[in-house]
């Protein structure tokens, strides 16, 4: 069985569970909404400053909600020791990692669609014309975030402190991706020329490449006994 078809099996398993329960997407979307509402309550002053604050709100909500989604998705594997069964399955170990990461990406993509609309409404932003670029930025940022987060969540789920550990360990590591995402989005909303944003895209892409590669190689030595 090739790596990708095995990863597809893991992904399909996660999607199937999600379709039947809706647990991760609904909880995560609700939490992301709460973060967006609370932060806009805290930071909204006028329409002028809203354009500066909104990108931060958007990305912080994605980061917080993402941690919740990954932690929930992996704690499912802990129940009934399902993770041991996954490890025993005759598939490459990296396939588990890729499958779970793709699952997180799918869930977060849905949550982000809702979140962007909410932030646009709350902060009175006009996103027509930059929607495609914003989607690209979010996709790039989420890939590196999910790649790092799933590796940490896979390890964290087996430690004593679990969710707490995931947030504490993950946020400093993904900080540069968050920074790139926020600043690039702010420049995008502010109408900066494409080559300005392109520089951020390059850093985000470098982050993605470095951490997806490291995740694929480190998953087996880190997670398997």
């Amino acid at each position: 069985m090739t790596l990708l078809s095995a990863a597809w099996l893991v992904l399909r398993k996660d999607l199937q569970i999600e379709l039947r329960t809706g647990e991760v997407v609904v909880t995560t979307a609700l939490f992301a909404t709460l973060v967006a509402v609370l932060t806009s309550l805290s930071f909204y002053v006028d329409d002028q400053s809203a354009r500066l604050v909104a990108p931060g709100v958007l990305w912080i909500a994605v980061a917080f909600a993402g941690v919740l989604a990954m932690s929930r998705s992996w704690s499912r594997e802990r129940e009934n020791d399902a993770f041991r069964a996954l490890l025993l399955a005759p598939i490459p170990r990296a396939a588990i990692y890729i499958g779970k990461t793709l699952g997180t990406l799918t869930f977060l993509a849905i949550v982000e669609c809702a979140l962007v609309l909410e932030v646009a409404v709350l902060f009175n932003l006009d996103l027509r014309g930059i929607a495609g670029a914003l989607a690209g930025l979010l996709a790039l940022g989420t890939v590196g975030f999910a790649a790092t987060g799933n590796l940490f969540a896979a390890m964290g789920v087996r430690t004593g402190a679990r969710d707490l550990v995931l947030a504490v360990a993950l946020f400093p590591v993904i900080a540069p991706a968050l920074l790139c995402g926020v600043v690039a989005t702010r420049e995008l909303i502010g109408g900066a020329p494409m080559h300005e944003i392109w520089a951020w895209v390059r850093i985000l892409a470098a982050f993605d490449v470095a951490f997806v590669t490291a995740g694929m190689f480190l998953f087996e030595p880190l997670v398997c006994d």
Partner: protein
Amino acid sequence: MTQPLSQRTDTQGPVFPWLPLLVVACALCLCATLYEIFGVAPVELQMGIVQKIFYFHVPSAYAMYLGFTVSAVASAVFLATRNERWDAIAIAGAEVGSLFCLVVLVTGPLWARKAWGTFWTWDPRLTTTLLAGMVFFAYLVLRSFGSVGEVEKRFAAGLAVFGLLDLPIIHFSVQRWRGTHPTVITGNGGGLHPDMRPALFISFFLFTLLAALLIWQRARIERLRQRYEALEIEAAERGLLEET
């Protein structure tokens, strides 16, 4: 069949004959450094005595990266070999690095207040130090939960490796972020006065020795702890712990 415990030689723990020498060298170098900094190096005109922080701050930052690098490299080797010896070096590097990181984060703002008029600025170097510190503080938190099992050790090792990978990306992204604003304050302004160089140079030497000494000692303690743990497990297996 294992030997009786009384005849075992591997209960002695590792012996480090060079350690006292390193301690003496460190103490002598500390005296020389203090004399050089406060006795020989000139007092800076504008900042006065506050500038002396510089001789501790810059070598501390260097010792911090030394500790973090040692930790990340040892973590990578630990993940590849699963040899506990490397884990001991990794935690020693992380602890010593975090200690120096605290020194940097305390002395830096004190100096910056006088030099730049502000405690903190989002300079690439400052941000990288802060985030590297957060990564390794998380490492220490991870390792300080009551029962540190195999999983926590590996998680911490993975975090250290990712932390080191992250440093250039943090530096580069913050540089780009603040680089678009021309008012950013970078570095320590102009070059260093030639009379101040010996003090800084010997301070660098001192902090190298100090970092090596601390990492070495901490790794030794960790090795002893691992050995103690192994002996305790062995004693429990032989039923020695149940008698009270």
